[in-house]
């Protein structure tokens, strides 16, 4: 038998794992679905509209950027959808619809594409966008709506659990998310379901969420706050599960992840207990994002058999 001699020659290994960037991003999107469903149940279809506008503008921004720059379209990696979803989750349901559009432009164009696109951004795009919006439109961003199950919500403002003071809200409200806040962060049960999906699919390790939440829990207890209230309120779970675990902007060493998450926890508590800003989680993750390169460098593993001899 004659064989055609045009074989593919490539360096080993000749088999690869099934995971791709796209499949990982898809798993994150699936993990965000419970929170999306919860947001619609809690805040009505207005929440879905905010999410749709946010996702659409994020994807369009990325597509437009690639078209203008004549680069290969990168929207197929699905990461813009995640940015859009996370951005929407950080907005109140009553927000005017131009706000998510501005947020998406900041997140995708300024934070992501200007620095080189996926893999090169120094901070989490959704977080920077949220902070930018909070600084630019403080009153719009904090007019939290109160959940009206399945009904169109009006702009009734109500206390968020953090603003409710030391007494806090009933635990059941915190778990189910039946309290005021931005659309994606109130329902702890939905966020935890997402966490389980991320862990089961080996998308993330438990390290960052566990250490982050653990640090906040311990510090709250030390400073005399109700630890469970602190953990379940505000954007902590959303931030710890979905934002602090962003691959690009978190350390890739195990020890680095612990340091990063602990730092996030400490800064969150400091802002919550001693500051007067509402975006404790966002700022803490942003500040720790900036330290990631140095954390990575300082926590490099010693290789098997010992490191290089000192020069």
């Amino acid at each position: 038998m004659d064989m055609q001699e045009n074989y593919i020659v490539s360096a080993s290994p000749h088999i690869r794992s099934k995971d791709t960037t796209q499949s990982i991003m898809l798993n994150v999107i699936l993990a965000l679905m419970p929170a999306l469903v919860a947001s619609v149940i809690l805040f009505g279809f207005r929440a879905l509209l905010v999410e749709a506008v946010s996702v659409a503008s994020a994807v369009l921004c990325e597509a437009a950027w690639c078209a203008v720059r004549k680069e290969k379209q990168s929207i197929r990696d699905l990461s813009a959808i995640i940015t859009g979803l996370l951005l929407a989750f950080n907005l109140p349901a009553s927000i005017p619809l131009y706000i998510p559009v501005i947020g998406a432009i900041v997140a995708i164009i300024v934070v992501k594409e200007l620095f080189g696109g996926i893999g090169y951004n120094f901070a989490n795009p959704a977080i920077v966008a949220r902070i930018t919006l909070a600084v630019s439109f403080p009153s719009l961003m904090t007019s939290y709506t109160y959940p009206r199950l399945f009904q169109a919500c009006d702009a009734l403002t109500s206390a968020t659990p953090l603003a409710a003071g030391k007494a806090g809200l009933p635990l059941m409200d915190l778990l189910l998310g039946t309290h005021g806040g931005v659309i994606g962060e109130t329902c702890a049960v939905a966020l935890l379901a997402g966490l389980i999906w991320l862990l089961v699919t080996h998308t993330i390790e438990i390290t960052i969420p566990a250490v982050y939440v653990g640090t906040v829990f311990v510090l709250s207890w030390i400073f005399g706050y109700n630890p469970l209230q602190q953990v379940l309120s505000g954007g902590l779970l959303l931030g710890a599960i979905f934002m602090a675990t962003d691959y690009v902007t978190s350390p890739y060493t195990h020890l680095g992840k612990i340091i990063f998450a602990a730092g996030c926890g400490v800064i969150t508590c400091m802002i919550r207990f001693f500051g007067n800003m509402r975006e404790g989680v966002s700022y803490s993750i942003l500040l720790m994002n900036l330290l990631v390169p140095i954390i990575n460098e300082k926590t490099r593993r010693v290789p098997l058999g010992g490191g290089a001899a000192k020069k």
Partner: protein
Amino acid sequence: MGFSDVFKYAGTRQKTGGLKIRHHKDTANFPTEYLPLPEQVVISMVQHTGAPCVPCVEKGDHVYVGTMVGKAPTAMSMHIFSSVSGTVSGIERIFHKAGMGETIVIVKPDGLQEPDPSIKPPEVHDFTSFVDALSMSGIVGLGGAGFPTDIKVQPKNLPDIDTLLINGAECEPYLTTDNREFLEHPDTILYGIDACLKYLDIPKCLICIEDNKEAAIDLMTKKAASDDRIDVCVLQSRYPQGAQNILIKNATGRIVPRGARHTVVGVIMLNVTTVSSIGKYLQTGMPLVSKRLTVAGDAIENPKNLEVPIGTQIKDVLNYCGLKEDPKKVILGGPMMGVAQFRTDYPIVRQNNGVLAFSEKLAKTPEITPCIHCGRCISACPMGLSPVEIGMAFERYEFDKFEGLNVDICIGCGCCSYVCPAKRPLTEVMTLSKGILKKSGKGGKK
């Protein structure tokens, strides 16, 4: 698995890196078949590490099975013997798989397979005669390294060696030849081990097998039960369990210092097929002239464990096993560390242990996307390196960073490329970086 087995497997936990990879060891229960004599055998003069052999026959010469055809120019090489009886039909130069030239001796078999009349079991009674016998055995590290075995068994610190490790991990997916060696020649293996322990004066031996080879574990445990010196060490099936430094760490807890030979921690490690070949050579005097290969892959019609004369061309192996379709990739070795071939007239050499033929589906090279810094390559690296950072330094031409990133200890196992979701060719980059570092005169083995 009985209750007591729980304890047997309890010590197999492993902390360093590595991966769980689908084994694809479908040929594990296929007994060895023998390839009918091919039309010609092409005996390469490069079948070991060290200087190439020099042909010691001429065109037209008659050779027997076991007649020396390639003479080792230095002590660091190993003689090469004819795998067939017949006539030397040519001595030529061909392109090596790595793109360099190499000399080949082509032998046309006469079909009689007469053994060389001078072959008789070697007289071995002490260390010197044992090493002398090995130097005429044609045996090299058969796990793939090809290091001459007679050199391997005489390290400078031989009196300090307290353990002989038999590497039967066979962690590469698809390959099952070491597994067959355990199942088909357990007594020859034990004969070889006994000789090594006796003549090298080593007190104990650990036969290291991954826990996916239960039949081999059971058989060897039973066979070695009567010998106090020999134990079976069950290791977790986790690629690259069979890599030298990883296996030493997991079997003995000892860590080979960076850049040092593995013998400094008091062990000598031999592949199971190597030790079995030693046993066979001591019993018969027939040097290593044939090799068992696992022939598999999704383009192969009938996957087999096939024993072939050394020098058989890849195309003869593929044709004997049958092809479902034209393969798009042909690999010598396993899928993780094997070498993709660009021609199928290249011959099998003695350290080969597998031929894989992949269809287009498995062969196509995945699209490379930007690194998303997931850190999976770092968790997977069995040597504790940071492939992502080495890759970045390489792309930015920051070659001065390589030394600090310890790229010189990369073993090229392929774990980083395997796990990378962005399908970046990390292993390739690591190997290139290692070469750059070596050229710059820093790092590397001292």
